[in-house]
């Protein structure tokens, strides 16, 4: 049933996109979903909650990644990041009555997500942010809103077909990432770079044998250069993407979970997926089951 609905959404969007393309020849892809911005949202929330403060302020700072096509990507000349994570951010902001153009996007890299939340540099982090116990000890993570797994991106002519083939090869990812640790455990020589794009370049040059990280990110890159790159092996880890919030505002957890659940039900989650990761040929996954919020 849902499959049919997804297809309908994709088809509908495809039509909408092709129509949009007529009017706006300059931009290809990077279309986003229009979400209904809640009106008078501040009245919905209890006094003293962070949600009310944000709704009254009319702006929210959301940390996303800028170098993951499909998940969170912003080119040098773009005004706004595009991808599944920014779409989720828009859905959450809309629930607070904040329009997409009033969101203040902040680039976060893997390293600074916790400090940014702890210091109030951002209100939310939606940045392919896997839920772990260690992270949950110092920041809040609601969700998951998406579950993916680690895979390998190799050149089209590569011999690597199974996970066992990576032993003794050089595999790159982002410095200090969980993916890099996982692949090291498989016997590969880990090569850390600052950004995924540098890592992809190394694969294309043949300097490293493969790149590894969450399948969704890899498919985004493979979709950009389908002739040169391919994604291999079944996912060999489970990454549950959560939405980070500060532990100073534990009330945000229930609100995030409610908003995400609502987006599951009204189809906006699937729509957000279809126009971002869906473009790269990824099938809409099962809607993940959300973790219950810690009792404050």
């Amino acid at each position: 049933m849902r499959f049919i609905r997804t297809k309908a959404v994709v088809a509908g969007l495809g039509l909408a996109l092709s129509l949009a393309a007529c009017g706006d020849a300059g931009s290809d892809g990077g279309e986003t979903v229009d979400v209904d911005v809640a009106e008078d949202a501040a009245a919905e929330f209890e006094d003293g909650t962070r949600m009310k403060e944000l709704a009254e302020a009319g702006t929210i700072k959301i940390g996303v990644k800028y170098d993951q096509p499909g998940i969170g990507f912003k080119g040098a000349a773009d005004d706004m990041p595009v991808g599944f994570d920014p779409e989720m951010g828009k859905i959450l902001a809309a629930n607070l009555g904040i329009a997409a153009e009033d969101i203040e996007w902040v680039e976060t890299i893997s390293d600074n997500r916790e400090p940014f939340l702890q210091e109030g540099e951002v209100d939310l982090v939606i940045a392919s942010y896997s839920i772990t116990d260690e992270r949950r000890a110092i920041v809040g993570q609601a969700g998951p809103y998406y579950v993916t797994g680690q895979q390998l991106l190799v050149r089209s002519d590569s011999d690597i077909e199974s996970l066992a083939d990576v032993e003794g090869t050089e595999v790159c990812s982002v410095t200090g990432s969980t993916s890099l640790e996982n692949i090291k455990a498989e016997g590969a020589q880990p090569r850390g770079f600052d950004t995924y794009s540098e890592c992809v370049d190394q694969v294309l040059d043949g300097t490293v044998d493969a790149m590894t990280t969450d399948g969704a990110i890899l498919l985004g890159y493979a979709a950009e250069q389908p002739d040169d790159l391919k994604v291999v092996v079944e996912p060999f880890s489970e990454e549950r993407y959560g939405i980070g919030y500060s532990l100073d505002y534990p009330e945000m957890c229930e609100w995030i979970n409610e908003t995400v659940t609502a987006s599951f039900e009204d189809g906006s989650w699937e729509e957000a997926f279809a126009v971002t990761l869906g473009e790269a040929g990824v099938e809409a996954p099962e809607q993940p089951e959300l973790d219950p919020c810690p009792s404050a």
Partner: protein
Amino acid sequence: MEAVFSNFDEYLKAFGVTLGLFVVSGLASLVLGTILAVFRVGPVAVMQKVAAVYVTIFRNTPLLMIFIFMAVAMPKLGYNFLWVEDLEVAGYNLSAFFVRSCIALTLYTSAFVCEAFRSGVNAVPLGQAEAARSVGLTFMQSMREVVLPQALRAVVPPLTSVQVALLKNTSVAAAFGMAEATATMRAFTNNDTDQRTGIFLAFAIGYIVLVEVVTLSSYVLERRWKVA
């Protein structure tokens, strides 16, 4: 810090890579830097120019850019140094990443070594060189026997600063495929986010210890070479 103590072998291995980068590029930069310094103070105008241009280029370019050039641009141009992985040194295979990092660090540090040496040569009274030439020594002989030994004594402190800077500069390699101390620290903080402060301190202490070893050995040299 618990995360560090329970993975202490990884901690040591990380500083081992840092030390490897430091020792290889430190020695290489001393050799290249000395040659450049000799060029700069030598009598051949072309060599003076070549060395001066080298120093101007590499001293004025940020190390990060040299790294980007070596690690990102060179492979695009077809020079990926993958052939070094076939070489075997004492049973170990060098990695192309290590070689590229060492080249970047050496190119950068040599410019500073050259200038440190030049300051030492300038500190040797002119009469020394003139006396050496007047007893019939060639330029290379007078450099080797008279000028450089005296210059070396004068440059121990500035040269130490250059090498200490190099030791800390190895951390730039963290972003270019080397699992050295800084990259490993980031892996640790990713795994055990709640112990961020302890992990940071453990790695900062590691760098401090290494730098202190370099500094103390330079003091020993200074004392030994002191003019009586």
